[in-house]
């Protein structure tokens, strides 16, 4: 297998979730090649917690639903398995405790100085990410793998696509 073919097999998963008013939580996972070309997309139907769940989970409801219920489901469901998962929501970083692949979260503070000084910060394309505090060893693995991603790639953009697709599916009642 040539080096190019190996490179082209490298796959990233862009996972995000959102709360849609009156509908509940939805999540989507877009698998792309290293250039951002889509390979597979999975999304959930809106998940609306009941009153008991809202009361008993309290403030932990959103993180639990997005990070464990939705994110786990999507990763299990997807057919084209990614080599790593990237997310833009810190709640989903919790997914790392349930899957065997590295998970990186887009750093809210994109300051290079701050990100590079932390133990968990690393850069993919033009953006800084961080790994789960309990899995800091992921950083080295991610840094190695993501050298295949073009340095000028905008890693925020695929999340926009996922959000747009989620709204489209909700609109269509999927």
């Amino acid at each position, binding site marked *: 297998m040539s080096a190019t073919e190996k490179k082209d097999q490298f796959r990233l998963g862009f996972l995000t979730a959102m709360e849609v008013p009156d509908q509940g939580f939805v999540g989507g996972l877009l698998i792309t090649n290293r250039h*951002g070309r889509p390979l597979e*997309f999975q999304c959930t139907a809106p998940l609306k917690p009941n009153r008991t769940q809202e009361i008993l989970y309290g403030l932990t409801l959103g993180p639990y639903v997005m990070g464990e219920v939705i994110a786990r489901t999507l990763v299990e469901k997807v057919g084209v398995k990614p080599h790593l998962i990237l997310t833009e929501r810190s709640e989903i970083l919790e997914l790392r405790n349930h899957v065997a692949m590295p998970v990186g979260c887009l750093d809210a503070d994109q300051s290079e100085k701050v990100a590079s000084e932390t133990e968990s910060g690393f850069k993919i394309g033009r953006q800084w990410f961080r790994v789960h505090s309990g899995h800091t060893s992921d950083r080295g693995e991610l840094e190695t793998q993501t050298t295949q991603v073009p340095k000028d790639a905008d890693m925020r953009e695929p999340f926009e696509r996922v959000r747009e697709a989620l709204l489209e599916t909700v609109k269509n009642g999927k």
Partner: protein
Amino acid sequence: MSDSSPATQKNLLVGDSTTPSEVIPRPHFDPQQFARQFVNEQLAAEAGTGPRPDPSVIETAPHPATDVSGNGVECVDVDLGFRPQIHIAGFNSALQRGTSNGVQVMTVPLFSKGQPTTKWTPYWGKVPTFGLTFPEGFEFLAPKPEKSAAGSGGGEGNGPSAADLIDLLPPGALQEGQVPAPDPAVPERRTKVKPPKDAVSIEDRLFYLLQPPLETWLKGQELIMPFEPFPYQYEGIAWLFAQQAALLADEMGLGKTMQTITAMRLLLRAGQVNRILLVCPKPLIPNWQREFKAWAEELPIVTIEGDSNHRKLQWTMPGVPILLANYEVLGRDFDMLADDPPKFDLLILDEAQRIKNRGSRTAVTARSIPRKRSWALTGTPIENRPEEMASLYEFMEVIPESTCPDLRQLQKLSKSYVLRRTKDLVMKDLPPRFDRDEILELGPAQKMAYDMAEKDGIVQLNSMGDSISVQHVFELVLRLKQITNYEPVTGESAKLERLEADMEEIAASGGKAILFSQWTKTIGFLEEKLARFNPLVYHGGIPPKKREPILAEFKNANDRPLLMMSYATGAVGLNLQFAGYVFLFDRWWNPAVEDQAINRAHRIGQKTQVIVTKFISKDTIEERIDRVLSEKRKIFAAVLGDGDNTNISLSLNASEIFGLFDLKARHGKGTRSIAPLPPPV
């Protein structure tokens, strides 16, 4: 079990919260202490030192732990259903056997039955999901590393550079589709593919929504582009990518070819199409080949050519993603392959005005080709009548067969299926084009020959009466037009004199000019007369293999300032941006064709102004034709929308050709005007 105490039931806690954090501790109750307290109170009452309580009621003081104050808990009294009497001696009469004091023993339901203890286990049902897998698509050879300098202007690699391949531009000139390096201060542009209006299924819509922005897809990442397209070109590519039926009608020179090639390239990559047929006029085959090489070098294309057996093999050859054919071959070969015609995912017709006549063989053949997507490319979708659009729509399968949409319906269809941009709209930076009409007096010999020919011609036509046809009138028009070019016996030509004067200046300044004429004979005449300018000639009589070298020589040789072309061969598809002068030696019947000719020079990549000189002989048929055409400048814009003020695509109809002359037939003692016969019903 401590809950069995009656007092527990007495002191029910009622709160508004049941969350674990707000549970209030159960109050401790000691019956013995309660009895002692009660007796002491009785004694105090009897001794007159305290209030005498009603022995039938037990009033329980609030327990400190159940105080209502402050924590939202209140005590309520519950009737126990019996009246305990406690004697001073300290025993309870209720415990006595017998009924001597009228007290009945009864069972008191201390608990309400069926009050379950609330238990909740976290459970989330199976989350329904929806998935979409994207097709694999074609994988082509990786682009050469040296081409990764895309967008910087140029192919400086070992292989042929894009600058050598794309077209005939002077060294250092801005190529077609190329823009200067982007300004970092300008926000990043993203052109997203939008789902087409007719995409209904969620799978289709998501497929388009989830595609990356074209800039990401094309700019130096996966698909190398030799030059950065203009924003409007990105929009055109994105639009084409999503369309099943499309008419790309950009004005000439805006890069329809490049947009189409790139859209094809993306569709192949995305696995949306596997087999494409592109049909164009025969003279444009080399142009398409060159553009494919420049914009999508990795795409394998096969040009249908050779003898019939070879062509049959080419039509049916598997694994070829793109076939290139000319209209003539298409007509011939699809008759041959009628039993089992090849099928295509995408059929593209370049210069699609070729199928404007719905009943023509070309149009019928094009419509018969099995295909999934139908695209038409033309800068002049309407050449004569708005109805010509109906033929294009029928090819695109957006109207039923043989239907005739009215103007309103055509406008509506245009919004969905036509993309047209004009230079005025998108190319504000394109150097200006100056048109000047040179109204020239004929020379004496020319004038005499012209007047005589016109007079004789009209007499002859009048004598034919009602048997006269458009063809007869047309022949006279042609004869007169030829005389306005030059007088055949003496060779006198007012236009030639003016042209020579202009060419002196152009050649001296190192400029380049292209000249168009309707007749190869006129071109031959000029070639001889202008020999000192060493002109090049390009028309249908030149073998196709010799045409490309002629264009290359015109581009590169400093001593070849003039290229003379026929409208039929040179007006379409060529990129001659390095020429700053265009001469229309005689006028074509249709301004759209003239515009096509002018736009060989006035197109993307042109760095200087373009001066267009139209020769019109005064007091001749040329002036009359020009007047008629200039009065017909509205229908094009009416169908294709506003902002289209540069293309006037309506040529003369039969009535107008008759109207060029005052033709009269004898009618009794007088005369009457001769008009064209109505078309047969």
